[in-house]
């Protein structure tokens, strides 16, 4: 299963003359960790949204196994982790419910992400950003998940949490042959985590 962006073009409404993504090609193979870096406002998050199927491309296509990524029913094999975890969880739901969004979470993953059992009874406003980000990861890592798009997911975390999360993700991507796209401004991080780096 390959995740491919072919001749991808995207512009926001009324901005046809200045596309954010202009005829872009990218292929992510299973087990591969592709780093993506580039200046602010160059369309890194937009690219992630396109690859995850949140936006429809204006030109070209995003294919997963030769099929348009937006067309998958049920749990999409491409999951995206958002930059701001506090916006990615429903503020009115306890985290246990958020975690079970698509079914029972894997106990091994919860343990490896160091999610403490008492956290699941809390509301998002009662946890820190790093703790919430672990929940977002646990929620996204369904058995069906074949590609994980990480949009600056550790930018606001302390170094210890960053190290824990990336070590876990590297292990996980090796174990289940999961392809990853890692967006970051930190060259050192990308060098450490990724198998190759693309500049936007």
């Amino acid at each position, binding site marked *: 299963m390959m995740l491919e962006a072919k001749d991808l073009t995207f512009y926001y409404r009324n901005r046809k003359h200045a596309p954010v993504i202009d005829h872009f090609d990218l292929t992510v193979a299973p087990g591969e960790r592709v780093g993506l870096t580039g200046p602010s406002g160059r369309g890194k998050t937009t690219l992630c949204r396109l690859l995850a199927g949140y936006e429809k491309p204006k030109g070209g296509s995003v294919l997963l196994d030769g099929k348009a990524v937006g067309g998958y029913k049920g749990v*999409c094999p491409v999951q995206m982790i958002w930059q701001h975890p506090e916006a990615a969880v429903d503020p009115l739901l306890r985290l246990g419910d958020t975690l079970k969004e698509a079914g029972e979470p894997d106990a091994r993953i919860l343990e490896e992400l160091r999610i403490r059992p008492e956290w699941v009874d809390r509301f998002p406003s009662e946890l820190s950003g790093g703790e919430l980000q672990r929940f977002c990861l646990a929620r996204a890592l369904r058995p069906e998940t074949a590609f994980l798009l990480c949009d600056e997911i550790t930018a606001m975390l302390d170094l210890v949490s960053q190290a824990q999360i990336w070590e876990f993700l590297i292990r996980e991507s090796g174990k289940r042959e999961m392809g990853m796209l890692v967006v970051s401004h930190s060259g050192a991080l990308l060098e450490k985590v990724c198998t190759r780096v693309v500049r936007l």
Partner: protein
Amino acid sequence: MNEEWNIGTREAEPGNRRRRMGLFLVCAGLVLLAVMVSGILLDGAAAETDFSRKNLAPGAGHLFGTDWMGRDMLARTLAGLSLSIRIGVLTAAVSAAVALVLGTVSAVGGRKADAVISWCIDLVMGIPHILLVMLISLAFGKGVAGVTAGVALSHWASLARVIRGEILQLRQAPYILTAQKLGVSRMRIAVRHMFPHVFPQFLTGLILLFPHAILHESGVTFLGFGLPPEQPAIGVILSESMQYLTTGKWWLALFPGLSLVLVVVLFAMAGERVRKLTDPASFHE
């Protein structure tokens, strides 16, 4: 006096603010219910004329006095308020339902539906309420049906706009987009993620519609475009009392007017408290 000391005493108080608000809501509800029921029961007494006791000033026998036909003003006031509350409940419910449907369709029905509904909202909000209520009431032949239609069809716009905005914002929320990509069904997303966010706004809007509805109903009736003169409505009472005010019969207008204000304020205060209790921002306080 420092901040911590304040917090300490507040926690030591027996009923906290939530409880006191709840208590107020129950009391307000009971008062309004009592007015409504007593008005229905007193409907006969309100129409009863007795020329041996006409134009009595407020006193022990008749707390609100009597009018020029010897009708007891307390009974008339209660009957009028009761009718106002019933019309208010009906119109607020219809208005809120219209607002919910149009707001939702506008938010999820695509750009064209949104344009049409937004245009309607602007149209209705652009015309002064009282004028719109009068015109619709006239078109529906006045009376209870006219007033109900008039108030119901003119008060949905602002709530519809709130609901539209709320849903539009929710649809783009990352946690809802994520839920979609995790294969959660549309129905489940609506029930689990959208409804709890929209409901507090909807409920508050609904309750805050009552005072508007009641005031506008009385307003058009006062101006002669609403309920017929034989109905014991507050608007009718007030407009009739205008002729007698100059002859010194102040009680004909004062007590019904004050009662109307009291009911409206009670509704408004209840709505305000419901908003505070259900506002997501203060949800966990």
